[in-house]
Structure formats: C-alpha cells, structure tokens
C-alpha cells in the first residue's frame, strides 16, 4: 500500500517515521496548528452551515451507512480555514490530536473517516484512520468527494453530505465484496 505525506503529498519512503521529502512528522502539526483541537464530534459545524433539521437529516444518512458498515465511524467537519492551509494536513492533525470522546475507543478512532469541508478554499478532504484507510485509495475517496460537488455548489449542502455517504457506501460495498465478511471480526 502506498502512503502519502499529509504535509507535501509525496509518497512516503520505506521509513515511515518521517517524510523523506519534506521531513514532516506528526509532531510538527503541533507547531503548525497551535492550540488545543476541538473535540471531534460526529458533526462539527464550525461555520454554522446547518440548522438542527439539517443535522438530523445528515445524522440519518450517516446512521443508514453505519447500519450496513458498523465498523466505520463517520465524522463531518465543516470549517473555514485561513488561506493556504493544507486541508489534508489539518485533518491529519484534527484526527490525531483531538482527544477521544468519553464513549470513544482508540480502535473506533482508527476506524474513523473524517470528511473535512473548507468553506474558504472550496475544498473537501477525506482522512481515514489506520483501520479504515486500507479499503479505499485516495483516488477512490476523491471520486466519492466529487460526487457531492454538484449538490454542494448549488447550496444543497445537506444533500451533498447524504450523497457523500451514499457514494462511500457504494465504494466500500465493492471493496467489502472482495475482502469482507458477514460476521464481526
């Protein structure tokens, strides 16, 4: 499996402790994003994009996928980052530095898929944990993201998130057919 550096997006060499291209390590994110990260809530709407009804709709779409794929933990984070901030890098920091919730285990965090939406840059990124990253490649996640673009650009942000869940389920179901099981492992 090929891993990319969240700092420079280059392929990591055999030494996984730091990036051979840019010298990035996880600790550097503490310098880049100073301060304490917010708790990684299931839906973190930092820009006030959605009202309570929207949140309910998004939760329903997420719950439908969770029924089918119970291992995956989904997090939606909508932010407005300073210009030129790397979204994959921010997501990497958020997923790793954000403290576990009270009812959250470290394994669940590793099964987490974080969808990060930046209202400033108009970008979306998906950052999967160690356990969830094996099933879809970066290219697959980009395809999933692009499916939500048309809804997003028309202002139908809730439908865009629902489309994200729908497409993620389709892609993961395909991956599951090759590797998965009906029983909990």
């Amino acid at each position: 499996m090929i891993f990319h550096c969240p700092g420079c997006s280059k392929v990591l060499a055999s030494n996984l402790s730091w990036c051979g291209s840019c010298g990035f390590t996880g600790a550097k994110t503490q310098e880049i994003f100073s301060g304490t990260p917010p708790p990684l809530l299931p839906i973190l709407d930092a820009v006030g994009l959605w009202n309570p009804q929207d949140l309910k709709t998004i939760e329903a779409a997420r719950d439908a996928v969770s029924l089918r794929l119970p291992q995956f933990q989904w997090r939606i984070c909508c932010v407005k980052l300073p210009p030129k901030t790397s979204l994959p890098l921010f997501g990497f920091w958020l997923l790793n530095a954000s403290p576990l919730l009270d009812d959250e285990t470290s394994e669940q965090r590793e099964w987490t898929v974080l969808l990060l939406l930046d209202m400033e840059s108009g970008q979306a990124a998906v950052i999967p944990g160690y356990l969830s990253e094996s099933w879809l490649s970066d290219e697959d996640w980009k395809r999933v993201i692009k499916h939500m673009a048309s809804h997003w650009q028309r202002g139908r942000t809730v439908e865009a998130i629902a489309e994200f869940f729908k497409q993620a389920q389709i892609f993961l179901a395909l991956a599951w057919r090759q590797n998965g099981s009906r029983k909990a492992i």
Partner: protein
Amino acid sequence: MVLRFILLAILILSVGEICLAQSPGKDFEYGPRPSLSVFDPSGVLAPEIVKEISDSLVKTYQSEGIDVFVVILIDLKGAPPEHVARSFARAWCEAPIQAIVLYVPGQPDSPWIVPAGRVPKVVSPADIALAVATAHQNAALEREGAEKVRTAATETTAMLRHWVKDVFNRTEAERAERLKSESQKNSRTKLMKVGLVVGVCLLIPLCGIIFSIARKMEGRRPAFFPTHDNARRLGAPYAGGNHAVAQIGRPPRSSRGA
C-alpha cells in the same frame, strides 16, 4: 422337357377352370336388388310363402335396419356355400348389419346362415359360430323346406337383433365413452400444459422477485471488514495521513447559515 411344360400348362388351366366354376360372380348377373328379400328364381317355394317370409324381413329391415336376405338355389355347382352367400351379400345388402340365409333343397347342411357386413368385424368369431350353429340346428329340426327357410330367417333376424342390442350398441356406447374419455383426457392434458406454461411464466418473475428481495435483504445486513492494522506512520496515533483532497467549490452565500 416339352412334355413337362405341356402338363404344367394343362394343370394351371384345370385349376383356373375349377375356380371359375366355383365363383357365381362370373356366371351370374346379379343386377339390382330384388324388391323381395327372398330370392327364389327356381320357384322352390310357393309365391305366397316367399312373400310372407319376405314381408317380415323387409319390415325388419325398414324398421330396425337389420337386413336378412334369403337366397334359394337349386345347385351351387360345387361353389362353397359361404362364398356364394357372401357374393350375394356384397351385391345386394347395404345395411351394416346383414346376413344371408342360403337354402339349397336336398342339401343336408342347408340352409346356411352367413352373417356379413360389419357383423364379423364387431362380433367375435366364436360368438358368431355358436349363434349360427344354434339357428342352423333349429332350422334343421323342421321337415319342410319352407319351414326350414322361415325358421332360419326368423332365427337369423333374432340373432342379429340380439347383437345389435348387446354388442353393437354396447360397442358404440363404449366407443362414445372412450371418445369422451379421450376428449376429457386431452382437455386435461391441454389444461395441464397451459397450467404448466402459466406456472412457469409466473415462476420466473416470482423467482426474480424472491431473488431481488433476497439481494436487498442481503444488502441490508451488516458487512464487516477484516482488521488491517497498518504500521503507525509519522508518529501519529490514529491516522497516518493521506492526500484525498478535491475541489468542490463553495455553496452560494444565501445557502449558508449564521
């Protein structure tokens, strides 16, 4: 060699002569059927007796379709009586149930009773032989030729009537029953075929629906992935980072909340 050939030719001609002599069809012009049912060209019986016997036979023929015809000949010229009787039957009898009573005065076995038409096809040979022997026996008991003929004709009529009632009608009834049964069987077979086709036609979409439901149900069941514990990277505890990022644009300002 020539002598042998001449002898063979003589033999063949002799046999041919005998056959011709025994065939009344060659010597006798039948013509149309006489109006009476008793043919007595030599006047063996008195005309009033001939008429009396004939009237009874004609009446039976007209009312019941049973055709008994009496032929009285002086001499058969060596021809077999059954052969002669059948020749007359072929020439003059048209009803399906028919018989010839052939009487030759002075012949101890006379009168001969020969059932013809459909009778030999429907009634078993054993039954015919038994009934004919009984009728012949009753006729033979009479002393006078006229009575022999009358008794033979009456017995033959009764014999044919019995067969019409017990054999022909039963056979017809059986045939009708068989036809009805076959018709019902054919109908059932046709119905079964139609049912089978309809069943198959219904079964295919039904299977499709069941398969579709099963797939849908299967799709709703939880799916689990094996745990691939990837090596920790860059000192990060939960995620090693990646670069799955894409431009999706910004939603219109009007759609944004507070």
